[in-house]
């Protein structure tokens, strides 16, 4: 701005500008840097302690080295499978209801309650599963743990399914109808396949989130030093083992906790990255 008088006021404003903008850069650096530091530390430490025993052996008695978390890995897989089998269909079909038949008061109630359920702390869901399933059945079980996790999956499954179904262009639906399809046929054969990418990634992200949950498992799946057959016995799970081993004084257990954290985090992040890449590529394509 040639010709403008350079007042102190202007200089001060420019200084404030420079300072504040660089501060925001610093904030970003701190935020991103924390992640990099966390991941780096975990990967270095975790990878160092990782060995074949971890994946294949059962836990050894307290104080003895050389154990592994094979049963916890299988346990987590079973819990997540159960949670998906229960939570995803309910969430998905609820999402279909909201997207295709919504707009009335009941749909409003469903959305409100979904948000409510989403906000419930996971430990409270653990209490719920304990009073609902463990107490009447009189034992801890994979079933109880799986149900607790499925309750956590449902709200997100509904919301993401609804979102992706709504995103399907109206033209596709109307085209199907114009060809003579009934509403349900249109939904099943046209709308859902069109939204399938989004729905799958939604399920993946949901799964990744629930995979790391520990609190609901404390009073439901309970933990197991051995293999857990079937669905009615307590089972070990990766997050729960990490929790128990990290708090203990044994150095060997600490190493195993790092390894478990490394494995768990790698899986979760891998799923997250893949899911988001699929989503962003789809966003590009549809634009």
């Amino acid at each position: 701005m040639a010709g403008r008088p350079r007042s102190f006021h202007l200089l001060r404003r420019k200084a404030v500008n420079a300072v504040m903008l660089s501060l925001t850069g610093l904030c970003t650096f701190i935020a991103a840097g924390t992640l990099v530091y966390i991941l780096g530390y975990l990967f270095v430490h975790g990878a160092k302690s990782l060995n074949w025993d971890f994946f294949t052996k059962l836990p050894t008695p307290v104080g003895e080295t050389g154990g592994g978390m094979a049963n916890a890995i299988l346990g987590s897989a079973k819990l997540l499978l159960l949670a998906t089998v229960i939570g995803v269909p309910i969430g998905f079909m609820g999402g279909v209801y909201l997207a295709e038949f919504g707009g009335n008061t009941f749909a409003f109630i469903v959305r409100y309650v979904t948000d409510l359920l989403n906000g419930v702390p996971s430990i409270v869901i653990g209490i719920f599963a304990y009073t609902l399933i463990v107490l009447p059945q009189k034992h801890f079980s994979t079933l109880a743990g799986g149900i607790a996790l499925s309750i956590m999956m449902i709200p997100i499954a509904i919301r993401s399914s609804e979102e992706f179904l709504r995103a399907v262009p109206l033209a596709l639906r109307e085209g199907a109808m114009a060809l003579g399809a009934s509403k349900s046929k249109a939904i099943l054969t046209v709308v859902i396949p069109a939204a399938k990418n989004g729905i799958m990634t939604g399920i993946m992200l949901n799964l990744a989130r629930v995979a790391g949950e520990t609190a609901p498992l404390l009073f439901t799946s309970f933990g197991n030093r051995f293999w857990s057959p079937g669905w009615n016995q307590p089972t070990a799970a990766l997050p729960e083992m990490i929790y128990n081993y990290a708090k203990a004084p044994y150095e060997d257990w600490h190493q195993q906790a790092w390894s478990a954290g490394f494995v768990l985090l790698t899986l979760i992040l891998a799923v997250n990255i893949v899911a988001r890449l699929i989503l962003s590529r789809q966003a590009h394509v549809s634009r």
Partner: protein
Amino acid sequence: MNAPTTTAIEARPSGRAQSFRQRLRAGDDLTYLVTLIAASSIVAITGLLVYELYINSAASRHQFGWAFLTTSTWDPVAGQFGALPFIYGTVVTSALALFIGIPLGVGAAIFLAELAPPKISSGLTFLIELLAAVPSVIFGVLGIFILIPILRTFEEPIRKTLGWTPLFQGPFYGVSMLAAGVVLAVMIIPFIISISREVILAVPNDQREAALALGATRWESTWDVVIPFAYKGITGSIFLALARSLGETMAVTMVIGNDPKIHASLFAPGYSIAAVIANEFTEATGDLYTSALIELGLVLFALTIVINGAARILVASTSQKGGS
């Protein structure tokens, strides 16, 4: 994008009613019924949850009434249960988390939305959103093995600069409300950044350009024009982050020190609602003890519902206003 509810276009020319079997084959009613059942089951589950919490906390509620929320004794032996130390610990650690998280989060959001080139902005946001995917128990492990030793080394400098306030006095053991607050801050920053950035990006460009045309600096246009426009959404993101931090269990349990007392200093250990439930639930002998813990769960539930509700309203109202 809102798909308007499509009218039930009949597969056959109108005027001829469909027989029951034909309608069944068409499947419309079945689909409607199945999805309706699924949607209702969610309402049923949530209702059952609230019901179970309420019923199973009856013994404690009848015994203590509203005084439960204001008593600070937690004495399982004497059968005296008061929620105050846990409410205090939960509130203090979350407040500390917000105190650290809001400036860092909003600052980073501003940088990512206003200043960074689009590729770097989305790349960094992607990275930061991955932080939100890290499970709580892993934050707890990192808290124990990395954060607490770091805090121990920084104890002296902190005490020298801030030791005149009652917040940083008294002995420091590593496990403390300070450690819990810092861990929570790291956990909620991604939420604040992610939502605030979107909300800021949604502010129409003409607002910025108008400000710049009037001679404002970049910062002034951001701070005095864009932020007020996005204010509700940013506040909404803060509320969401708060709701999340109130319910955080594992990371807090591992670093807070598990002491059911009220201390003024952040250096002191404390206890949060979620942490005490996690620690004591499986061993709570007797109905009163168990129902006291469940009543704590009810309190936490109520707290997070209220804050989540406020958050949703705020975020929704901004996105309606800001989106064009």
